[in-house]
């Protein structure tokens, strides 16, 4: 099993403000399932921003897919981003696009043939219970439906890493269970999953998951399992 994400002494500050993340160090193996937990303001969203390459760290080093992303030129980042699926807390659905077109975005950006796009999107929409809402725009979808569109969009391109920020926040318990089951299934197929959540009760549904606890920008890891991982040889980092 290879390392897909590695943080070493990572710190993050926005502008000249105080550090919102301090001394973050952990390693994720390919196919791992990680819950990211912590109270509001703990730094979960900032950590996810680093993971989906919306931000570079202020200090430290981040390796993803075997590459040091802190020193990669920005022109190399889109290709890495296409290997990452993201479900954001505010969904970020594109208002003028239908549910179908929103879900199809990653495939179309990647240049997938339109017939293939249609087949994949239709299949996934049926799976998440949105087949009847194919042509609905986000404004007429309920919060739960919007969230399912966001999740379907994140997983449609079969990403290597799936990042989800409070993915079960706006859905009923039954749907929350289904979505978590979907993440678990993707994880069993080899996708590395990171879920930031407040819903601690959901964590028991994925017994194999590891947990990274954040508190005011620092890792709470009394067992020392995730912090300061042993050095990894460069060959070990490549996929």
């Amino acid at each position: 099993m290879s390392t897909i994400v590695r943080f070493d002494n990572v710190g993050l500050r926005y502008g000249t403000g105080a550090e919102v993340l301090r001394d973050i160090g952990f390693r994720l193996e390919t196919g791992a399932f990680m819950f990211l937990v912590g109270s509001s303001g703990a730094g979960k969203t900032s950590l996810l921003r680093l993971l989906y390459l919306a931000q570079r760290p202020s200090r430290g080093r981040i390796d993803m897919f075997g590459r040091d992303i802190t020193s990669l030129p920005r022109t190399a980042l889109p290709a890495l981003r296409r290997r990452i699926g993201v479900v954001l807390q505010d969904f970020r659905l594109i208002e003028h696009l239908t549910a179908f077109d929103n879900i199809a975005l990653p495939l179309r950006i990647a240049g997938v043939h339109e017939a293939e796009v249609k087949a994949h999107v239709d299949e996934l929409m049926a799976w998440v219970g949105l087949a009847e809402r194919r042509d609905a725009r986000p404004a007429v979808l309920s919060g739960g439906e919007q969230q399912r569109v966001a999740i379907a969009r994140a997983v449609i391109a079969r990403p290597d890493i799936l990042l989800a920020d409070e993915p079960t926040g706006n859905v009923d318990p039954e749907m929350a269970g289904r979505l978590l089951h979907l993440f678990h299934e993707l994880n069993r197929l080899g996708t590395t999953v990171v879920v930031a959540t407040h819903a601690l009760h959901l964590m028991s549904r994925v017994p194999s998951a590891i947990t990274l606890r954040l508190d005011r920008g620092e890792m709470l890891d009394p067992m020392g399992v995730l912090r300061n991982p042993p050095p990894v040889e460069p060959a070990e980092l490549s996929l």
Partner: protein
Amino acid sequence: MIAWLQPRAQRYRFLPEGRWAGGALPWIIGMMTFLATLALAGGMALSNGAAALTGGLSRSFTVQIVEPNPDLKREQTAAIAAMLRARADLADVVVLGDSELRALVEPWLGSGNIGEELPLPAMIDARWKTGTGDMAAIDEAVRALAPTARIDTHAQWFRPLAGVVEVLKWLAVSIGVLVVATTAAIVALSVRAALSTHGPTIETLHIMGAEDRTVAALFEYRYAIQGLVGGVIGAIAGLAVIIVIGNLLGQFGGGLAGEVSLSPLGWTALAAVPLLVALLTILTVRITVGRRLRQQL
């Protein structure tokens, strides 16, 4: 719109359609294109005029033979014409006929008031084949044949006018450059506003792995259409004005007014203005979007 001309991202409507023509922008571009077309046409026409003044017209000179004795005047005229025609560096040596001389004087003395008894000088027009040759030698040779003869070089009359035309030409070029810069600035401001409006969508596209060129293509396509529409409107209006001015100048007949005109290449350049405006728009959009996107990760 022809589908295959659209960038892939545009076909998928990653950005909202909005008004395809972009509201006021095509009209603003149209006005700028109108001004640019006039400046370009003015610059090219004046350039042709300046070339004529410093070229053909200023290479000409006229020999006036002022001799009261008609027989002697005829002899001197024939001798000077023969001498001039014998020179290899001169072309178009023309002795003006009696009717042509009377036509020159008529505007001042009135038609029918020029009798046979009015002594008119004989005149010979000649032109240097290239540049302006040795006028002193011509002067000496002419005076040897007709001591009272006088030579008028056209260059001495046209030199101040040529200076004015040259200044006007560069003024037109400067106006054209300013208009182009203003158009680019207006487009850049509009693109920046659009980038802010669509900021969240662009960020989402980025998160999903869209490359800068994909995002830039969305804007380039839209603004190219607007630039083309504005360019066509402005160029048509500009060409209409140029044709009207050309007709007005044509009423002056030949001379300098005839030289201040557009060559076929000039008309082709004016017809290409809408395309150039669209290209300018695309280039401005590409630079503006690229700069803004590079500020993000």
